[in-house]
Every structure is written in C-alpha cells, then in structure tokens.
C-alpha cells in the first residue's frame, strides 16, 4: 500500500513538472517509460513512445547515441544535461524540452529524463532578448554618433577653413589701407561679420560635440579644479570689462564628466555673466555638495533674466534683448552637455538683489570619498 502511494505521488509530481523518465536495463538495452506506457499526452504527441522517441527526435537521437556515450559507459559524469532544444511535431507545433541522461553505477542500468521547459525557455529568452536588443541599440547609436562626428568635421573643415582665409586676408587689407582710409570702416565691418560667423560655426560645432560626448570615461574629474583653471583663464577678459571675478573654492567634487567639455560649460556661464555685468560688478563662482550631487553656481550683478525668457533660456537659438550677435547656442550646449552626464542646469534671478544665478548639478562620481566639510 505504501509503495503504491509513493508511486502515485511520484507520478503526480512528474506529471505536474511535465517530466517523463525512461529507463533501460543492461540486459535488454531497450528504453521503456518508468511510469508505464503510453505516458502523458504531450509525450505521445511529440515523441510517440519510449521505443520511438530516439528515432523520432533528431536532437534526442544525437544526445542519446553520441553526447551521452561517456555517461552511459560510466567513464564520464554520472548525469548529463542536454540543454534546451526546440522540437516540432508533425502537425507543425513546437515545444521546448531538455533531457538529462543518468547512469546508475555497478551496471544497474540507465535513465533518461525528458522535461518540457517552455516556461524556463521563455524566461531565459526574455532576458537574452533584452540584453541583445540593448547591445544592438547601443551599437546603432554608436554608428549614428560616428556619422555625426563626420558631419561635425565637415562643418569645421569646409566652413571654418575658408573663413579663416577670408579673415586673414581682410586683416591684411585693413593693415594696408593707408591710401584709402575711407574703406577702413567697410573692412572692419567685414572682419566683424566674419568673426561672428566663425563664432557661430564654433557654437554649432559645440552643440554637435555635446551630442557626441556620450558617457564620460576614465577617472572622475574634480569640478572645483576645472572651475579654478577656467576662471583663471578668464581673468584678463573680465578685467578688460571692469568686472571682478570672485571664486569661492571648497573641497574637491569628483564628478563623472569629460574635463574639456566641463571647462567649456563653465566658460560659457562665466563669459555670459561677465557680458551681463555692469562696469565694476562682481561675478562669483562657488561650489557646494548637496544630496550626493556636486553643485556649481555662477552669479552676476547684472540686470537679471527677463521672466519671459526664463522658460526657454536653455533652448537653441534663444537670445536676450541685448544679445545681438550671439549664436543663442551657448546655454543650449551647456544643457546638452550637463544632461548627458546625468546632471541638470537651471537659471534664476537672485532674490532681493540684482543679477542672475546659473546653477549646474552633477552626480558625484561613484566611489568618490566624501570630503569633510
């Protein structure tokens, strides 16, 4: 009674797991179903019977007659998994299966378990599909970026180089206009417009470049050090306009960024602030650490930002009323670049005082040691 009960439970478990077990004894060498023929419906549909299965399935035939030879001979592993395979029956329907070969020691025979594994396959397929799709998407993106890089180089080369020649010749003309001083204003205007065009090409190239930056690589960059180098380089420009630069450095702020582009972002913000500052005004550059982010602020004492302009300040080709001649791409470049590094950029008017405040926030680099305040 107990043996019958055990067999019934075992049979239930195998049925629920969709497993059939074939056994063969050394004496006759033929396979038979451990649970007795005919076996569950799916087994009959896809494999027929224990006697037919190996001949009906090319995979099972290969697994039993070839791959499992060492297992059967007792010279290999005691059990061997086949891995999953797809089996299609005569009606055209497919299911996925896995086989396990087992050898009982001391010549006690062999067993072969065959299990339907559609659920497991679908789970694994979903994971692999996702991984493959991501890799393919990443590669497609990389290829797109390479195409843009070529376009960028065309812009720089095909537009920039002839312009450099034009500028050089105009400057040459300007220096040798002794006999025609009346033409000097015209040459100056041409030089000015050519320089403006060169600046525009540079801005457009920067926007393209921001799109090409991708994820930063290598060591984290110290935002404060880059800020210090950038503000030092701008000191003569600020002095020429009667503006004082006021840096407030603090502890290092390592961020995942690309140093040259980070410097260009800070330079754009500082040059912007200098341009909008009154004679004798101050431009401050300060750093902070807030909630796992590095914060950098550039503040000026100018007229501030028009409320109407604030919502579209970081869009391309946005210009303030006094900015004729600017490309309107500088702040757009800043936004693209900072966002590509997972950061944010914002602008506001300073409360209770004149001037604007630009603020960028970048995630602190992973693994960066917290610096004591």
């Amino acid at each position, binding site marked *: 009674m107990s043996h019958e009960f055990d067999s019934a439970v075992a049979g239930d478990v195998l049925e629920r797991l969709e497993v059939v077990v074939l056994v063969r004894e050394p004496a006759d060498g033929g396979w038979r179903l451990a649970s007795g023929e005919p076996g569950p419906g799916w087994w009959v549909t896809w494999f027929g019977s224990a006697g037919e299965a190996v001949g009906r399935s090319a*995979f099972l035939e*290969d697994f039993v007659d070839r791959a499992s030879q060492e297992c059967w001979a007792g010279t290999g592993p005691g059990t061997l998994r*086949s*891995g999953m*395979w797809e089996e299609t029956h005569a009606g055209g329907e497919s299911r996925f299966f896995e086989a396990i070969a087992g050898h009982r020691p001391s010549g006690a025979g062999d067993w072969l378990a065959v299990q339907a594994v559609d659920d497991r396959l679908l789970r694994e*397929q979903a994971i692999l599909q996702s991984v*493959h*799709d991501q890799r393919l998407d990443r590669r497609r993106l990389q290829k797109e970026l390479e195409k843009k890089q070529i376009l960028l180089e065309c812009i720089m080369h095909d537009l920039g180089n002839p312009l450099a020649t034009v500028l050089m010749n105009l400057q040459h003309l300007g220096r040798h206009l002794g006999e025609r001083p009346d033409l000097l204003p015209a040459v100056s205007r041409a030089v000015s417009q050519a320089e403006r065009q060169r600046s525009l090409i540079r801005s457009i190239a920067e926007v393209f470049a921001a799109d090409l930056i991708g994820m930063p690589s290598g060591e984290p960059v110290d935002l404060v050090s880059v800020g210090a180098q950038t503000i030092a380089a701008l000191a003569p420009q600020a002095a020429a306009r009667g503006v004082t630069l006021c840096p407030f450095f603090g502890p290092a702020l390592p961020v995942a960024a690309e140093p040259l582009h980070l410097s260009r972002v800070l330079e754009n913000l500082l040059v912007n602030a200098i341009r909008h500052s009154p004679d004798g005004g101050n431009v401050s550059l300060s750093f902070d650490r807030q909630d796992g982010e590095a914060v950098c602020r550039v503040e000026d004492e100018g007229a501030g930002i028009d409320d109407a302009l604030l919502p579209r300040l970081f869009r391309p080709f946005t210009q303030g009323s006094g900015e004729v001649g600017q490309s309107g791409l500088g702040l757009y470049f800043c936004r693209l670049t900072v966002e590509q590094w997972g950061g944010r950029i914002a602008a506001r008017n300073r409360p209770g005082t004149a001037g604007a405040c630009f603020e960028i926030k970048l995630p602190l680099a992973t693994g960066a040691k917290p610096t004591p305040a």
Partner: protein
Amino acid sequence: MIKRKICLIGAYAVGKTSLVRRFVSGVFSEAYLTTVGVKIDQRATRLPDGREALLMIWDLAGRDEFEAVRKSYLSGASGFVFVADGTRRETLDAVAEEMAEIEPLYPGLPAVLLINKRDLSADWEIDESTLSAWRDRGLSVHLTSARTGEHVAEAFDDLAARMAGDAEKV
C-alpha cells in the same frame, strides 16, 4: 539517402535562424527573436554527383548562451557554417575566435563562411581585402542575404558538396 549534421555558428543577431528558415522554408521575418538552445531543421539536397543528402541543420544559440554544452552539440558534425553580419564587423572577429577553438577539435572539417545581410549594403563594414584574407585560408566565403535569399541555397549546397567530397576522401 545520406544524412549529414551541419552546425551553424556565429554571434547573436547575425541571422543564423533567418538563414535556416530561408534555406528550409523559403521565408523571412523582419522580427529578431533571439535563439535559446538548439533547433534542428532538415532539408534534402542533391549533391554534384547526383546523390541525395539530408542536411540536418543545427541552429545553435549565439556563443555566450551555450558555452556549457557547446562541445556536445558540435560533436558528430560533418560541416560547419560560420555566420557573420556584414554590417557588424566585430561579428567576423567572433567567427575568428570560434574557428580558433573549433578547428583543433575538428581539423580539416568542411566549413563555409557566410557574411550575411548583404541587402544592407549602405551599412556594410567588411571590405573585399578582409574577405580575401579569409579565402586565402581555404574557406569558401559567401555574401548572403536571408532577407532576399541571395546566395543562401548556394552556400549550403557548397558546404554539402564539400562534405560529400570529404566523405569520399575518407
């Protein structure tokens, strides 16, 4: 009818399953569904000497996915179809790595190299000099398109003929 086992080997998404479907069923689907495990298809083909052969075509998952059991799958193969994606140069590097591992185990076994997705000529990344280097290694190289069917049957037939010749030598 003689029966021959052929294994398709190549990186993910190079078009192995699509090539088999094109060769066996004459159909193509744009959707990419990654292969897990093994699927065996078969197609009869006539060899140059007039004999008929049944090709048992083993479509194997990309390399990463079947490393643990790959040796047992390859065992008993009469020929290999290495597949690369002509729009992804690195998949040819993957073939080189696969061949370096497989050749010592099955020296001299007939093989063909299929550079697939020939229809995507605008994105093609493999130049003729690269292919010449592969041909110089004695490998038969076919530029195929599972989408259009270009050179697909010829590639499999070529391998079948090489396998037949190989069997006669034995």
